[in-house]
């Protein structure tokens, strides 16, 4: 079992949902990123999604768009982010790290090279937003070959048959998008997203984490009642936007509050 599955199992055994925190790598700077990963871990994140900034993030709302622009303007690259992961591991931080992003930067490095280098740096798994079931096999093979976990996405528009096929490719958990929309939108109905997680868990036999539209501990609690994991992204990204280079303490506190919401 990889570190990602272990973290999900540990949360379950402690009767809580796993808390998964998204950070945009390189925002506000590559230098600040290791401390932010550690702050999330100290606050109680079970898994960190390290976003690889992309110039054209079509699945993201304004908060993560702006974070990506800041990161790219600050010189963030795939290689730079892998070095950040190495640094975090060297400092003894063991929080599972899921590399999260769009396909083109991965293609540009080369799928095999990326997987190998990511695994070596201490990355635990991959989640690629614009790589649906049909397009995923080449990267998924390389990812498995390098010993990385694979986390696919399921959307509200995904039928249960298709969700089952998607679930069969997951090795860490399945990420269920709570609504049709981009990241950072206000959730319309988290209770029904939680119901959907239960339904997906049954259909896929996998642990389901729910993301999009979860901002506060109370939101997390609604989802945690039925989902194995809770993902928070834009809310943390906004904290970093506000606090800048010294965001680590604020991130730690925010994550701790969210973690409290994840207890059942």
């Amino acid at each position: 079992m990889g570190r990602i599955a272990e973290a999900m199992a540990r949360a379950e055994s402690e009767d809580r949902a796993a808390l998964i925190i998204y950070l945009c790598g390189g925002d506000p700077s590559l230098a600040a990123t290791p401390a932010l990963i550690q702050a999330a871990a100290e606050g109680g994140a079970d898994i960190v999604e390290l976003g690889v900034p992309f110039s054209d993030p079509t699945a993201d709302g304004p908060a993560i768009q702006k974070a990506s622009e800041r990161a790219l303007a600050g010189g963030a690259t795939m290689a730079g982010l892998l070095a950040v992961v190495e640094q975090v591991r060297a400092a003894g931080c063991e929080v599972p790290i899921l590399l999260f992003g769009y396909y083109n930067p991965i293609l540009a490095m080369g799928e095999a090279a990326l997987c190998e280098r990511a695994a070596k740096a201490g990355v635990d798994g991959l989640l690629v937003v614009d790589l649906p079931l049909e397009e995923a096999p080449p990267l998924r093979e390389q990812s498995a070959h390098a010993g990385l976990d694979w986390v696919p996405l399921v959307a509200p528009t995904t039928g249960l048959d298709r969700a089952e096929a998607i679930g069969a490719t997951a090795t860490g958990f399945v990420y269920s998008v709570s609504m049709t929309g981009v990241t950072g939108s206000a959730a319309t109905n988290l209770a029904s997203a939680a119901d959907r997680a239960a339904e997906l868990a049954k259909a896929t036999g996998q642990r389901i984490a729910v993301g999009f539209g979860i901002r506060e501990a109370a939101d997390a609690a609604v989802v945690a009642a039925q989902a194995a994991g809770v993902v928070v992204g834009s809310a943390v990204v906004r904290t970093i936007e506000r606090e800048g280079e010294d965001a680590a303490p604020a991130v730690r506190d925010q994550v701790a509050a969210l973690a409290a919401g994840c207890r059942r």
Partner: protein
Amino acid sequence: MRETLSLPPGFDPVTGRFGRFGGRFVAETLVPALDELTQAFFQAWSDPKFHAELDLRLRDYVGRETPLYHAERLSEAVGAQVWLKREDLAHTGAHKVNNTVGQVLLAKRMGKTRVIAETGAGQHGVATATACALFGLPCEVFMGAEDVRRQAPNVKRMELLGAKVHAVQSGSRTLKDAMNEALRDWVTNVETTYYCVGSAAGPHPYPLIVRELQAVVGREAREQCLAQHGKLPDAVLACVGGGSNAIGIFAGFLLDEVDLVGVEAAGEGLEGKHAAPLNAGKAGVLHGALSYLLQTPDGQIGEAHSISAGLDYPGVGPEHSYLLEKKRARYVAATDAEALAAFQQLTRLEGIIPALESAHAVAACGPVAESLRARGVTDPTLLVCLSGRGDKDLDTALELIGAQDGGAH
């Protein structure tokens, strides 16, 4: 026969790829919507009633067929017989309307209640707003803030037609950012909304749908060449932004022994800022498809530059990448300055003010004629897709021409 779709060479309907290019690199939320669209398109395309309605609209509303015109004074100037396929005479002034009338008809058939589109030059936005007015559907258009400035008359036209125009402030504030924003809207409102993509680009099935709707240009042109000129042309030229007018006219000649020449925007030159991914890009994934792209070594999308908003796009439709790698078509490029010169040349010699996009194709006539003569073709015949008229570009063009003249004094 059009009722049964004969698939383009190299196209696999299961993967949605032309050779290795194309596919469907989108968020999972959109996959079921693209499946629904694919199914609706194939059903419509095998329904004679759909074709009857489309053909009637194309004839009586769009004004098809558009003329094929022998440009004699231009012919003399470039040393070849130049025939212009007059898409500038289609309703709304560009080929874009062939696509939007078909897609909005499809949207209605699918029961969608809202249409969105991205636009660069504003021609596709105007054409979509027009089709939505015609069929009674609400329309919202995403347009880069930079293009809103460059193409102000088209913004006014869209608004007059009842469309809502969103000025997009992110990224380079041009066509690619407008498409990003349209995709974000679609992912949010996917249940009710039809996304009317403006070029032969984007995820499967858009490149197929748009090429089939634009293929009418090539079908007509081929028949007209035979009827008016007695033979096929030696070369077919078209400008390439996303690639819809080019693939539309190429589609009529893919199986003939005819040179197919796409003309990309070389902007300030291929060593500087340009919009020529087929000439100077690398394969990658943008807006749902694998195709040639302007990008950095790190896989970030490069910023395109062209004098012409409709060509100012870092990607290109996947079928063109396929035709390039198969060597079935070749792709050259014309600079801003060359396009501006051709814009004036066609205006003065023929009394036709072309769109700056189309002026790129006109600019390539001389060099293509020369290459044909070098291969031993005496008095070559060139068929040029005059994709649109230039009214929308007058401000931009006059400003640049004024600056040139001022500099010369």
